[in-house]
């Protein structure tokens, strides 16, 4: 075909690796450029943690406030709170930020794979989430005297990485909506708390009312947190373990493919209608 060049598989892999490297380099550089943000997160995190945990503890009798299992649930809940926020605010709104900085059109003019848009944020969030996991565990020990233990380290690592991929896929789908709708700040706020509520990040979803359980089973994050909790505190899983691992793995792949397809569709659509640069 005229103008179309055949590229070998190795060259294609080399090209995408280079793009991913550039995106990751960009992400790390941007993250480290603002050390005050990292310090601010370290100082403010224990305070936000208190603000979220105390209102929930008020439903327990004071003698149970020292219950280790409750804090383990809260700890993994806070980690997944971070992952869900990442999905909407970091991946989903990556497009919005590029729009505001005036760099979106340049990215879309280049022949780089669209996944680089998210790879930059993915690297930053990987750094930030890893830091949060260690830091929150230290805080739990200092503030509540609770030692966070992990039942199956390998499964936990696997489930956390897959959860970040699911978050990036969900973020790509949401990013497509952002590209179309432009101003989605209000939607992100509401969606974030709805997802946190129905995905059972602080408690097993089988404790939800039956009507809400239907919504819970539709949320991809339900299975991510369920698997992570099983790996960390050895809680029973919703599905047999191997099926749940397979489901989360499939979700990670399918959601990313769907996200990229949706992004591609909206990009082409906005290019045709001339709305790519309008915001």
């Amino acid at each position: 075909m005229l103008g179309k060049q055949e590229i070998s598989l190795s060259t294609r892999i080399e090209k995408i690796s280079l793009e991913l490297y550039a995106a990751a380099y960009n992400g790390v550089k941007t993250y480290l450029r603002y050390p005050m943000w990292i310090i601010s997160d370290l100082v403010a995190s224990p305070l936000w943690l208190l603000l979220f945990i105390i209102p929930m503890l008020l439903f327990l009798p004071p003698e149970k406030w020292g219950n280790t299992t409750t804090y383990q649930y809260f700890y993994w809940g806070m980690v997944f709170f971070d992952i869900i926020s990442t999905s909407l605010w970091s991946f989903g709104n990556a497009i919005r930020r590029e729009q505001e900085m005036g760099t979106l059109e340049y990215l879309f003019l280049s022949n780089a794979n669209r996944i680089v848009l998210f790879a930059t944020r993915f690297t930053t969030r990987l750094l930030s989430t890893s830091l949060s996991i260690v830091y929150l565990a230290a805080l739990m020990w200092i503030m509540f005297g609770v030692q966070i233990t992990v039942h199956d380290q390998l499964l936990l690592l696997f489930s956390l990485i897959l959860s970040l991929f699911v978050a990036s896929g969900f973020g790509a789908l949401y990013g497509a909506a952002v590209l179309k709708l432009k101003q989605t700040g209000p939607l992100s706020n509401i969606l974030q708390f709805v997802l946190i509520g129905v995905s059972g990040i602080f408690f097993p979803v089988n404790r939800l009312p039956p009507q809400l359980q239907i919504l819970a089973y539709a949320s991809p994050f339900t299975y991510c947190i369920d698997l992570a909790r099983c790996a960390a505190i050895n809680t029973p899983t919703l599905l047999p373990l191997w099926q749940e691992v397979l489901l989360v793995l499939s979700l990670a792949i399918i959601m990313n493919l769907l996200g990229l397809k949706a992004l591609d569709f909206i990009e082409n659509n906005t290019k045709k209608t001339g709305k790519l640069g309008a915001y």
Partner: protein
Amino acid sequence: MRNMLKALRNNLLVIYAVYIKEMKIWLRYPSWIFVFITLPYTLTGLFYGVGYAIAGNRAFDNFVKNTGARNPVLYYLLGSTVLLLSVIIIEDMGASIRSEQLRGTFELHYLSPANKLLLWSSYVLPHGTVSFIVIAATLAPPLIWETRTLDIVSVLWTIVLLFIGMLPLYGIGLITASLTIRFKEPWAIINIIKAFISVCSGFLYPLTVLPHWLQLVSKTIPTSYLAVLLRDILIFDRKLLLEDIRLTALVITSLLYLALGFGIYLRWENYARKTGDLSKY
């Protein structure tokens, strides 16, 4: 006398102009007002839902024992609404100046003969209007549901308390505005201030659950008195008396924070004018 009247008229015009401009911007994105009304409900649902899931059937009884309040929904709705508004006011002063800087209109204000302190202070009025709308819209449904009628004195006290409670937040807002002029991107520090005020104010829990040293710190935060007084009126149906020591503490600490905010702002603005930092960002 004529000069004084002219100055008063000019100052009122500044307040009017800022009010109209900011309300226009607010109404341009009405979806944000919708979020401010729904967010306290989502937070309340989250706390109540998780509390019920971890405590089971005894959840409500435990809550009553720990807080003394018999209506967790109203308790959290009130707390999260005041929390949300406090965060908005603290952020907004700095954010307003930063957006003026980014739009390139910040220096233009300094070319005008308007009083700068009054100019930046006027931002609190439109945000105050939106705050009152949000509080009324958020709290009306649970109050109507409970078929509770608040007497006019309680309603007036609520408005007066909210007004006094906004003064220290406005003072902190002025400090964040100073930080914006001085450091341009002060979000990291603002994030810490917001978290600190939110935790020490006890918007979502009685302060007695905090460690003793943190309870002492919270006595220096005006919003901690605001939260307790508002709960007394709206949740516990108590009558507020003028000689209430908590009311005096609220007024004194509010005025102190306001004076501190004005002091820091004037000092840093002066410094920025002298060093030419005003137009650097």
